[in-house]
């Protein structure tokens, strides 16, 4: 007896859709890399500038947009000034802009004084290199086309090393690139939020202290939401996640049961 793949697919859809409809939500116990990430933000002084690089594709926004939302909320709550930019991914120009704006409106933060959104700039690694020497040789204007020199940022930031923290939200190798070209080279402390797939890849860098904190996938975002005492997209998604994991665990057990049963029959 073998389960048809159509049955598996149908069950999977079911366990994902039902919890979303009924809005079940669990408490998620935070783990160490997330707590470190959280505390790193809490230890920043009011009014300090930090860089948030948005280097993910629309295709992974399921995991990373909840992180961006929670992080933005946290930064605004602590009166830290985030500078959002996107130097490494040409595929997106305005990702996250709308949701940042929405949170800012709710928390009464003003664009271009309480936060900045700079968008994409071509140049890849050479842009990173240039930012190390003169930030404004790369970014002259904000995303909506206003000159940066008219704003507060111009007085406080000259080069990338003037930022107190760099946070990369990424789905690919950009964290490694930023570690190499910004953290190692200019000494900007760094933390990262990545997709679950990439998370285990970055544990060696976490272990070595190169990364100060790490949010891994939807679970990481949900833990972060728990620490912030809010329940948004990530925690809701985690309930669907939970049931799907259980389904997969059961599938593995059934698969092995069938395998051993088949093997015994084969021997006879």
């Amino acid at each position, binding site marked *: 007896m073998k389960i048809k793949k159509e049955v598996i697919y149908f069950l999977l859809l079911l366990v994902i859709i039902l919890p979303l409809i009924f809005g079940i939500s669990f408490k998620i116990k935070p783990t160490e890399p997330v707590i470190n990430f959280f505390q790193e933000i809490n230890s920043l002084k009011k009014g300090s500038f930090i860089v948030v690089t948005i280097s993910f594709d629309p295709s992974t926004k399921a995991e990373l947009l909840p992180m961006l939302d929670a992080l933005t909320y946290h930064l605004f709550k602590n009166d830290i000034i985030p500078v959002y930019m996107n130097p490494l991914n040409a595929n997106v120009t305005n990702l996250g802009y709308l949701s940042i704006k929405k949170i800012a409106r709710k928390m009464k933060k003003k664009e271009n004084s309480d936060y900045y959104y700079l968008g994409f700039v071509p140049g890849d690694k050479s842009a990173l290199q240039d930012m190390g020497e003169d930030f404004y040789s790369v970014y002259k204007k904000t995303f909506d086309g206003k000159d940066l020199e008219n704003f507060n940022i111009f007085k406080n930031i000259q080069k990338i090393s003037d930022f107190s923290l760099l946070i990369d939200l990424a*789905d690919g190798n950009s964290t490694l690139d930023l570690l190499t070209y910004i953290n190692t080279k200019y000494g900007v402390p760094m933390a990262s939020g990545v997709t679950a797939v990439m998370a285990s890849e970055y544990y060696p860098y976490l272990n070595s202290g190169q990364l100060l904190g790490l949010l891994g996938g939807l679970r990481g975002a949900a833990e972060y939401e728990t620490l912030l005492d809010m329940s948004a997209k990530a925690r809701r998604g985690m309930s669907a996640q939970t049931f799907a994991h259980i389904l997969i665990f059961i599938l593995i057990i059934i698969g092995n049961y069938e395998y051993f049963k088949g093997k015994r029959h084969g021997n006879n």
Partner: protein
Amino acid sequence: MFNNAYIFADSNGIIKSGRGESLLFFIFVLILFTLSYLLKIKHLPTRKLSGIEAIEEAIGRSTEMGSPILYVAGLKPVPAVSAIAGINVLGKIAEVAANYGTPIISPHNNSITMISAREEIKSGFLRAGNPELINSSKIFYITDSQFPYAASINSLTNEVKPGAIFYMGTFYAESLILTEHGQSTGAIQIAGTDSVAQIPFFITSCDYLLMGEELFTASAYIKKDLNSLKGVLMQDIAKIGIILYIIIRLLSKNL
């Protein structure tokens, strides 16, 4: 947390500050590299890599079935070294395929990678003395975007029904979409990748896998080319060097 024993800390010197240690390591590697070419080595015994041995077999089977072979390049484009390594393997595959007279189809997601692949296949066919097989229109570009590229390869696989599929290079999430579907068509699948996160997926749905650094040594391995194998020897010795260095540093710190 980490302890930097930088030897050249002076930023005004000829060596950039903080990079002395890396430079020393580079010189160490360079010496090993030069030595392995200067010493008159006649023969190098190599560990068996089943993935490599399977390449010829897969091409042979594809020929028997009368179907083409499909080469899928990774997402990181040339000149990233993983892509160069993949293209080097492609050259060797092309040589074998030309001997069998089997055509190669290769979709790409980057223009430079596509051009390198064309040159490499052309050279491979020429080396095998079978230039009439060269058909540049079979090495084509689809799109830079990850998932449209993956979807397109899936539908291509259905269309051309390849007997063997090779995946060489750095892959991301699209790996399982490609390999699961490829497996369902019954093709032999051989993958080589340096993206550690994707290795479990290649294990579950490919027949053979060159994992991690095996991708970089593959091109030297296929034809047991002594010249390229010498570079592999350097890798081995440098690896032992790293282990010894860690142990010595560890002992000196704790004793």
